[in-house]
Structures are given as structure tokens and as C-alpha cells.
């Protein structure tokens, strides 16, 4: 079968800064792929390129066997390639539930349908109680979850999570990870960018490591994590716990 997502020699630079040097890798359908790398490795940039926020200087991006270079961010989202943001992007003029509904409306749902589905989604993450609040009243952690739910409303095929779980407390981590695994069962593929090694270890079936705008190595998580290059470049002496120690017991 063709890979769900396939990148060929993707490069992106901002003036002097080479954020992505040459990224080539593929994501097969189904499952959860982890993406780790030092700060400034290019993870977010990669997500921005995949979702059409930045046009790559060179390289190709295929999604579901189709070259999506020409598609706008919105159209990529509509064909099932969605993302969340490292910094949350709440929709301040709408209530939490309305903000989530937007995704559904774009999928063509009626307002009633969108509302009820959005409500289910909120319950999924235990946010139902804030459904009718303004997002202004939510802590940053929860705002990211709203972004997450909003794009879930599109029935995506591939979800790119940019540090979704950073700043969540232990219990919330448990819930969110549960949901992600559950969704993965239903056939949604995830690319999980996190610095919380606990999360990475628990979720990822396949692990990709970036550094300085390049893929350093990828493969089966436990082996990758003990790869000396990764230890040197990323984990430091911290292999076992990782900074996500709050969540690292799994």
C-alpha cells in the first residue's frame, strides 16, 4: 500500500536559518508515530510545511498518494490532514463548543449536528462542563485541547500534534493519551511531537528523530531511544525518565 504521507527532500530556510535541510520519510496508514528532537530541530517547521503554512523551498509532499503542494491549508484539512499548534489558538469570540463546531461545519454538518458531535467530543476529554464558557476563561493546557477537538471534527486521516500535551497535569495526560490511542484504533493516524518522553514511550509505535533540520534516525521506539546519537543530541543523561517524568510511568 502507498504511504499515507510521503515527504521527499523537503527543505525550508528563513533567510540564513536552515530550518529544514533535507527531510525524507513516510508515514504508513494507521498507528501513532512519534517525532522528537532538540529544540529548534525543525519539528514545528515541518508541521507548518506539511499543512501549507510555509511553502517548502524544495521537495515534495504526498498525502494519500496525491501531491498536495497546490492545496491551501484549509483544503489540506478538508482532505484529512490536520494539525494542532504548539501555542494554542482559541477562537475568542465564540464559546468553547462553538469553536469546536467550526471544524464540523467545514465538514458540511448542519449546526445542530455539529453542536451535538462537538458536545460528545468535549465529554471525551472531560471538558463538557466548560462548553458554554468563553475560551478566555480556560488555562493554556485546555485551550490546546480545544484546538485538538476542533480539527477532530473534520474526521481527519492524519493528525499532527505539536506538543499537545506539554503543560497538562498527570491526570489530564492519562485522559488525552487514552483518547489518542482509542482514536488510533478507529483508523486515524497521529504524528505526535512531544518532549515528554513518557508520552512518546507510551504512545508511539514508530519513532522519528530530527536534529538540525534532518531526520537523524527512525524505527522501533525502544531501540531508537537508546541510539547513542539520540542520547547525545537529545536525551542527555536523561534516557530513563525524560522531562515528562510526571507521566513517564506507564
Amino acid at each position, binding site marked *: 500500500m502507498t504511504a499515507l504521507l510521503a515527504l521527499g527532500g523537503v527543505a525550508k530556510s528563513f533567510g540564513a536559518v536552515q530550518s529544514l535541510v533535507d527531510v525524507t520519510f513516510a508515514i504508513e496508514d494507521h498507528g501513532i508515530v512519534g517525532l522528537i528532537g532538540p529544540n529548534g530541530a525543525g519539528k514545528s517547521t515541518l508541521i507548518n510545511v506539511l499543512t501549507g503554512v510555509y511553502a517548502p523551498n524544495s521537495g515534495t509532499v504526498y498525502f494519500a498518494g496525491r501531491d498536495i503542494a497546490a492545496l491551501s491549508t484549509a483544503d489540506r484539512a478538508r482532505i484529512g490532514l490536520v494539525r494542532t499548534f504548539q501555542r494554542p489558538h482559541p477562537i*475568542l469570540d465564540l464559546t468553547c463548543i462553538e469553536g469546536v463546531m467550526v471544524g464540523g461545519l467545514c465538514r458540511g454538518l448542519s449546526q445542530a449536528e455539529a453542536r451535538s458531535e462537538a458536545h460528545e467530543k468535549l465529554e471525551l476529554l472531560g471538558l463538557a462542563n466548560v462548553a458554554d464558557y468563553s475560551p478566555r476563561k480556560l488555562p493554556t493546557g485546555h485551550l490546546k485541547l480545544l484546538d485538538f477537538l*476542533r480539527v477532530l471534527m473534520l474526521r481527519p486521516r492524519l493528525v499532527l500534534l505539536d506538543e499537545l500535551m506539554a503543560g497538562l497535569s498527570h491526570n489530564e495526560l492519562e485522559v488525552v493519551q487514552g483518547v489518542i490511542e482509542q482514536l488510533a484504533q478507529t483508523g486515524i493516524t497521529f504524528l505526535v511531537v512531544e518532549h515528554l518522553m513518557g508520552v512518546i514511550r507510551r504512545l508511539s509505535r514508530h519513532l522519528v528523530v530530527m536534529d538540525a533540520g534532518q531526520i537523524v534516525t527512525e524505527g522501533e521506539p525502544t531501540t531508537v531511544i537508546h541510539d547513542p546519537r539520540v542520547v547525545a543530541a537529545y536525551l542527555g543523561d536523561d534516557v530513563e525518565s525524560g522531562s515528562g517524568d510526571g507521566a513517564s510511568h506507564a
Partner: protein
Amino acid sequence: MKRTLVILVVWALFASAGILLRNNYLVSVATSAAFLAVWGQSWNVLGGLSGNISLGHSMFVAIPAYVTILLFQRADVSPLLGALLGIAAAVALAAVIGAATLRLTGPYFSLATLAAGAVVLSLILHYDELTSGPSGIPISFAHDAPEKLEFTNVRAYYLIAITLLAAVTIFLDMIKRSRLGYYIAAIKSSEAAAAAAGVRVAWVKVLAFCLSAALTALGGVFYVFFIGFADPNFLAGLALSVKIALIAVVGGTGFLIGPIIGAVFYESIDAVANAYFGAAGGWDVMILGLSVVAIVMTDPRGLCFMAERLWQAIPFRPKVSISARGV
């Protein structure tokens, strides 16, 4: 739905009031206020919903007005048909400007629209063979001809104006609750988030701009027959653009009735100041301007918020919201 009903009732009240009112002067002031309010509402599709403050909306008043009159006087196309063409022209222009100013927000957008408006004006002034330039085009008629939008009784225009106003208000309320309303709100907060959720940002923005232009144009066509004279420096001038934005904001963006309150406030201050201080020279203008300043100082968010605060101050008030909050 309930709100639509309220609007219709209020409309009926004002309609009958206008018909019964003997004083022509008050009626014509009320009419200009109503037209102003129509434009304020139309402006709000942009300024209120998407937070983009346009300072060039008078071009959407002038263009349909000119198209209609010129087609009528030069090619005697019926104003009714001409109006449609005029509105179409305004929308077309809006589409172009909208598409061009897509990437602009905040003051960049405001000043871009200001500039666009200025270009339209100087073109109208310059190509005087076509537009008869700064001299403008008088529309003189002696007797009624509804099919030509010509009425000798101001009340006709008054009724047209408040009907438009009611229609536009209801329409705006619907947009707010529509799919489009959600999209615009999303874009207002974060284009990135909207796009990520599948909202076709560019398309929605242009659409909003065109809607706003179309509604403004609708008012413009009738208005020019009301004042009976197409004066470019007035119809396409910066002053009118600013006035439109001003009354919408003075009323309080975020309120469905904001522009209406704003228009009534502005026109009445203007009328009173002109009546009692006009002879003194300058006083009327000063009072008008400073009263706007006074409002910002008492509540920067505008009259409706002020009213709401007063309302909340009343100890045993009935549990109804006096104003459709949240456009």
C-alpha cells in the same frame, strides 16, 4: 426569530410615527439618520463581525448611485434595473479590493480602504465627461414616479430607509448565527486556527467584504434619489466613510443595534448643534466632535455598553436583555 419579531414591531412603530409626523424637517433628518444606520449595519458585517475597520465605505454609496443615475439620464435605463447594475458594480469593486487587501489587517486594512476610496473619488472628479466631475448631477423631478424612485414626499424615502434598515438588521442577525458567522468569528480570532479547521479564509473574507458592499450599495441607490443630487465630494468623500465607521463604533460594535443607536445619536447631536449653535460658526462642529470624545471617555466601547451598564444599575429590573448582544 423572537428578535426578528421585535425588529418588525419597532419598524411598524417608526413607520406609523413617520407617517403621522407633520414636521417635514424631522422626517428628513430621521431619513438621513436611517440611511446612515443602514450603512453602519452594512459596515458592521466587516467592522463588527470580522473586526476589519473600513474607512472607504463611501465608495460603495457613490458607485451604485452614479451608475444608476448615469444609466438613467444618459441611456434612460430604469433606475430599478440601474440599481441592480449599480449594486453589481459595487460588489465587483468590493471583490477586487477585498481580494487585494486580503493579507491586510488592523490599520493597514483601514488605510488601504481609505486609499481605495480616495482613488475612486479622484477618478469620479477627473473623468468629468462621464461623471460631470465635481459639479455633480442634479436629479430634479416635479411629480411622483415610483418606477423611477422619484417621490415628492419625503415620507416615501423615510419608509424606504427604515424598511431597508429593518431588513439589513434582520439579515445581519441571521449572518451572525449562520455558518458564515462562525467562519468569520474564527478568522477574526486566528486565521491560522480557522484555516487549520478547514475554513477557506481568503474566500470568506472576500465574501464578507462583498456582502458589506452590496448592503451599503443598496442604501446608496435610494439615498441619492432622496437628496436629489449626486455630489461626488460628498457621496464618495472621506467624510462620509469616516461618518459610517464612526456611528457604528459610537453605537458599540458587538451590538446588533449599535449602528442604529450610533446614527440616531450622531444625527440628533448634529441637528441640535446646527440648529442652536450653527449661527455662531464652528460651535456646532466642535460640539459634535467633543460629544464623541465624551462618549469614549465615559465608555470606550460605545453607547450600547453604556446603556447596558445603566440598565444593570437599575435595582429591580425585569429580566430581559435590552439589546441583542454579540454581533
